[in-house]
Structure formats: C-alpha cells, structure tokens
C-alpha cells in the first residue's frame, strides 16, 4: 500500500475501548460551556444570567466568518457568564448553565425534516454555520469555512478522515461501525456542498479513508458503497500520523499539499478533508436540525477502570467524564485528545468541547532524562514532513530560536514523531513551539516592513 514517507508505529492500545459500544453519559448538574470551542473569534454570548435555556438553543453567536455558534447542551438556567480553562491552558469566556435534567428541546431541534435530501449546497453550508459545526478531529476549524473554498480552487475530492491514527482513540471507529449509514449520508452532504451548481453531480468524489487496523469497518463500508460511482472506501497502511491532513492526502491521492511556509492548504490540490464525527454532525444538523452540542469521545488509559466510548454534552467537566468510568489513584497525567498530540490538562475542571476526541488517564510517571543529541538521525528518518527536527532542539538548547526559521520550523505539524523516537528523550516538540513563537512575529514584522517599503517606492 502506498503511503507517505516517515512515520512511526506506537502501540495502538485500541483494544482497551474498541469493543465498547457508544454509551450516553448523563449530563452533570452544572455545565461550563466555553464560547471558544473553535479556531477563530470567540462566540458572543446572547443570553444572560437568569435566562432559561433549552437543549440546542443558540446561546453564543458567531462573531465573524471564521467563528462558530455555540448552543446549549442542556435545558435549565444560565447562572453566570464566567471564565474557564481551555485545554490549551488559557482562560476563555464561558456560560455556566444549571441543568434542570428535563432535556426540554428548543424549537424544531430534533424534528425530522422530510425534504432534507433536497437541500441545496448553499443550504448545507448555511446549516453547518448555524449548527456551530467545527472539525471534530481536534483542530476545531469551522466547517462552513472549509466548505466555502474560493472559486479559483476546484475541489474534486472530499476525504473523510477515518485514519484515527492516535493510539487509544476509538470514537471514530465506533461511529463508523454503529452509524455507518448516517456517516455516509454526512459524506454525501459534504460532497454535495462542494459540487458547484453547474457541475455534473459526480464531479466531486467522496473517499472514506480507513487504517488497515479497522478492516471490519472498511469491509462494511465497501459493501454499502458498492453501487456508488463517486463514493468509495480506501484502506490505508497503519502508521502514525496517517490522519494528518497532508499525509492523508499523500496516501489517498498521491498529491502533496505545499507546506505552511508556502501557505499550502488541501484545497490547493483540490481536496477538502473532514472528520467522521463532523460528517455525522452535519447529517444530524441537516436532517434533524440538531446543532452541535454533544459528541462521542473515548475514555481510556491504564488509569481508567472501564475504558469506553461515550456520548458527552460539551461543557461537561473532565472530572465528571473520568469518574463515570472510574479513574484510579495511579493516574499521573490526564490528556485531552490522543497521547501523541493531545494536551496534558492541568485541571480536571476543564470542560469537554467540540474538539475533544478523547480523555485519557495514564499512570506513566517515567521520568525522561534528556541527553545530548547524538545525531542518530532517527527524527530525520521518521519525520513525515522531511524536516531536520534535531536542529530545533540543538538550536533551542543554546537559545538560538531565531535560526529555526532557516530550518523551516513553521512547516512542522507538531505530530510528535521526532520526540517519540528520540533515544536521547529530547523534548523536540517543545522547542518547536517556542521556535514558532519566536519566528512567526519576526516573519510578520519583515513582511510588514517589506510592504511599507513597497508603498514608499510606489508613492
């Protein structure tokens, strides 16, 4: 099977939760719903303390094109506009909502729309925007933006990213297994949304890309897509980071998206990538008028009693989710997302958001002593972006972060492969993050200076 260059094979640990069917987690008594659950401008709260809210009711409106609406995950009373911790560590505005446990639905939310198959591409994008749908793989980029490429970009393929290459995570696998048809309907909607009105209906194809460790799902998909001319399932080699956008597109279509330094986006090679959960959310929004206020996530790790896959309302605290499956005292690190790219949480009060694909509790308390780089080249050999990762850490060691620009630090996707393989246990990704923080402002200032000079020259 064709694939990208580099990558690693960490133990996938999916056996812990792969066979656990999705269970609904009862919403807690209090939820803290962040107004920033996406990349872009935070939503603006449109309710006040004391207001009564229903499930699916708009409580925060998008404050720009690159922003996303936020809806109430429960019915009850808004207690306060407050601040909460984002998994990234910063604090963001949030609404504290007291759950009355009644699950009173907002108007029309959940109603089956009989004409849903006839919606226009325009309506689909509109619905994605109104329903507050964002990329649910973790990046949380607003879906309606991805579905509105400039006219100059000709999209010919939508890839549904079902690689789920992060160890432990099984939520996309469970969704594909349990809700196969609905996910396919979601993919069809994505394809339709990206088909220009004057183009033949088969111009855009939809590909569900699955890693070879989920063969059962692949076979099921293949069976169900047999008679479709523009939809198909693809099996990919098991390799991390198979689910990283650029690497996924390389594997599936053998096309290379230009790197960040050249402002490359999947649409430059005619591709839009969406996550399985996102496709399902779009289907539910279009057909049942259901905004995105809950999601399936994996609870796992060696410090969890009964790992599983849960349907959780956003705004539920991490602690509530972990306790539901039993967290042991041996837990020393709690991760939002997967172990390769996820974020180690500093507080268990951090609420689940639209991008939380997993909550892991690990007891690994290994103390990784950092040693000097022996230039073994493991990071170079495994880097899926063909960078020289060791340079970032050796330059960082002596504080020369500005020089990381020459070594293309901004093209790093922070997949963590270099740090995973490093025999000297060097925190390379950490150096990359600092390097980017130093280099990006320098590059911006230079671009600004260039612009000013050009303005001066041209009067």
């Amino acid at each position: 099977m064709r694939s990208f260059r580099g990558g690693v094979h960490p133990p996938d640990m999916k056996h812990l939760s792969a066979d656990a069917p999705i269970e609904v987690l009862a919403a807690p008594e209090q939820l803290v719903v962040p107004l920033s659950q996406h990349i872009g401008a935070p939503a603006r709260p449109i309710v006040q303390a004391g207001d009564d809210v229903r499930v699916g009711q708009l409580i925060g409106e998008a404050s720009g094109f690159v922003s996303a609406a936020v809806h109430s995950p429960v019915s009850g009373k808004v207690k306060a506009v407050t601040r909460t911790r984002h998994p990234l560590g910063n604090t963001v505005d949030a609404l504290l909502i007291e759950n009355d446990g009644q699950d009173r639905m907002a108007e029309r939310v959940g109603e089956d729309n009989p004409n849903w198959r006839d919606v226009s591409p325009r309506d689909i994008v509109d619905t994605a925007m109104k329903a507050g749908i964002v990329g649910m793989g973790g990046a949380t980029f607003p879906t309606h933006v991805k579905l509105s490429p400039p006219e100059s970009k000709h999209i010919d393929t939508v890839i549904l990213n079902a690689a789920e290459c992060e160890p432990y995570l099984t939520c996309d696998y469970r969704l594909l297994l349990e809700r196969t048809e609905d996910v396919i309907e979601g993919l069809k909607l994505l394809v339709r949304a990206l088909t220009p009105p004057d183009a033949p209906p088969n111009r855009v194809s939809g590909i569900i890309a699955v890693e070879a460790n989920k063969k059962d799902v692949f076979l099921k998909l293949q069976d169900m897509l047999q008679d479709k001319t523009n939809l198909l399932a693809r099996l990919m080699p098991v390799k991390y980071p198979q689910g990283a956008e650029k690497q996924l597109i390389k594997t599936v279509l053998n096309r290379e998206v230009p790197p960040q330094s050249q402002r490359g986006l999947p649409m430059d090679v005619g591709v839009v990538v969406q996550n399985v959960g996102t496709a399902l959310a779009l289907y539910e929004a279009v057909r049942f008028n259901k905004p995105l206020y809950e999601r399936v996530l994996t609870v796992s790790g060696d410090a969890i009693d009964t790992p599983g896959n849960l349907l959780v309302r956003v705004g539920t605290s991490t602690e509530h989710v972990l306790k539901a499956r039993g967290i042991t005292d041996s837990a020393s690190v709690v991760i939002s997302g997967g172990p390769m790219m996820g974020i180690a949480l500093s507080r268990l009060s951090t609420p689940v958001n639209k991008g939380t694909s997993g909550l892991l509790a690990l007891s690994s308390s290994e103390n990784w002593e950092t040693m000097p780089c022996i230039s073994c080249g493991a990071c170079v050999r495994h880097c899926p972006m063909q960078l020289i990762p060791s340079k970032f850490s050796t330059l960082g060691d002596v504080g020369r972060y500005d020089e990381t620009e020459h070594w293309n630090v901004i093209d790093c996707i922070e997949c963590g492969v270099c740090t995973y393989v490093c025999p000297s246990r060097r925190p390379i990704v950490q150096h990359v993050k600092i390097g980017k923080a130093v280099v990006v402002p320098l590059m911006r200032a230079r671009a600004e200076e260039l612009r000013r000079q050009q303005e001066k020259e041209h009067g």
Partner: protein
Amino acid sequence: MPPDLQVSVSPHIRSQETVPRIMWTVAGALVPAGLVGLYVFGWRILVVVSLSVLSCIVTEAASLRARKLPLARLRDGSAVVTGVLLAFVLPPHAAWYVPVVGGMVAIGLAKQLFGGLGHNVFNPALIGRAFLQFAFPLQLNHAEWPYLIRRPLLEIFRGDVASADAIAGATPLAVLKDAPGEVFSGGWSFWDLFSGYMPGCIGETSSVAIILGGALLIALGYVNWRLPVAYLAALVAGVLLFPVAGADGALRAGLPAIFDGTYPWQNLAVHVFSGGLMLGAFFMITDMVTSPMTSRGQVIYGVIGGIMVALIRLYGGYPEGVCYSILIANGFRPMIDRFTMPPRVFGQRDIAAGGTS
C-alpha cells in the same frame, strides 16, 4: 482521584529506544569480530581490550567529575564502545600502555574536550589510534605480525601470540604494497582473507564477523546501509580506476586491464577484505555522532571516505588508510551538512517554477 497532574508538552508516550540501548547493541554487534580475534590471536587480546575499555571508562568518569556532571552518564555505554573499537584497531601484541594511553586520548581529547557525548567532531577511537601511530610508532608498525597456528575451534582460549604457537607474517596489505602479485603466496586462501585467519589488528581481520554485526545494526536501523555501501563502493572504484605503478614502475590505470582480462583480481580482494576496511565501513564511518544525518549527506560522506582510502593505500606511505580516511571524512561533515540540509520539505514547491501563490 490523583492529587497532582503532570503537565508537559506532547507527545506523552515515548518509544523504547534509548542511547544506552543503542550503545550496548553496537557493543554486542562487535562480539563476533572479537571472538574471531580471540581465535586468531589468543587470550592476549582480552588484556588489550580490557585495558582499552577500562582506560576509556576511567577517563570518561574523571571528565564527568571535572565537568560536574552525574557519573550515572557512564551507563550510556558510549565509553565502552569507544574502548572496544580502539582495541580492535590495535595490534594483538601491543604493550599495556598502548591501549591505556589510547583510551585517555580517545575519550579525554577527542570526546570530552569537544563537549562530551554527541559533541565530538572526530571519531574518538580513531583519534586515539592516530595519536598512538605517532606516539608509539614501533608498537603499531611491524614488518611481521604474529598470529596463531591453526587449532581446533573449541580451543580459543589456549594460545597466545607471544607463545611458541605463534607464527608471524606481513599483513596482506603490506605484502600488496611491497610486492604486489605475491599476496596469496604467503599460504592464505581467499577464505582465510574473508573469515579473518591472517595477521592484522585485533578486531579487523574477519570480514564475515564484521558484516554479521553490521547487518544487525542495519536491520535495527542504527546504520543506514547506503553509508557502508558508498564507502566500500568508492574504495573499489578508486582501486580499479586510479593508475598504479606496475612492475616496471610505469603508472597504469586499472580500467584497460579489466577490459583485456589481465587485472589482478586478488589485489582487489585484499583491498576489500583485509586491513581495517570492513570495521571502518560498518562501525567507524557509521558512528552516529560524527556522520551526516540525511541519506544524501551520508552517501557523499561515504564516497569521500572511500576515495581517501584508495588514495592513501595506492599513493601514500602507509599500507593502510582507513583510520585517516574516516578522520578526513569527519572533517568534511559540517560542509556536507551545509550543502545537504535542510532538505526539501514535504510538499515544497519550487517557487521559481511557479509554485502556489
């Protein structure tokens, strides 16, 4: 519920690979070559190897102490590997102070003075060897090298090169240098050359044992096969193509002789399978710290090294050139890095060719 949470940047898991694991594996891969040395030269080599390793460890410990670094770093195994490699390029009958001084120079001068593990520019074992070459020329350069009379395989601990069981002869490369055409008249067969039954340094003689260890390192991903292959191929090309003086003293290129069928192929066999070439190709030039990181860089680096061996062996004063060839290649490494890194990033378009806007 855990009282405290550990917070760190991703990734939160690590592979099993560690520096000690790499170093001890390299040391293990050297064992077959050492066993052949034991058979060919007798128990004396154990003294040389032990002294060399001990000297390296003590020098490493003293340096760590002086630099106020934890002595626990000794556990990384790098000093042991240097010690074994140094001993492997010494004569089996070297006096006790030869490996001791060599180890001190290898670790103290070539490694620790440059900043310790990961910071040395030149291969420590080879710097040690090069130093000894000048410091104790009589200990390292011999017209006759002792080796043991053949004995049953099981008796590897019986004899010693200083005993009556030993015979002595010039090394194949020396024979080649002084009297080309008489290489196989000394009683060796091609199999002797390949298996290592011939006079030479402690761990250098057995190509088959070294290739075995090298194959393990390649299979584990510690060595990129392109590097030893480039090094060996460049030496073969150099030996075949560079003009050499014939019996009448006139310089002749090898190429015409290959075409008219008069090329002395056994000379090539001596170049490839005797001397330090194999140990150099699989264990010296491939040293992680002192070799380039990209595949392209490693090929260029290997070719430079291989051509140097050919030049030194064909035109230099010494019959052997592996040690200096690799040290010279070490010196080229920063320049090779400069021209081969950073490589093209995934998806990077050539802007001049009209990349994306």
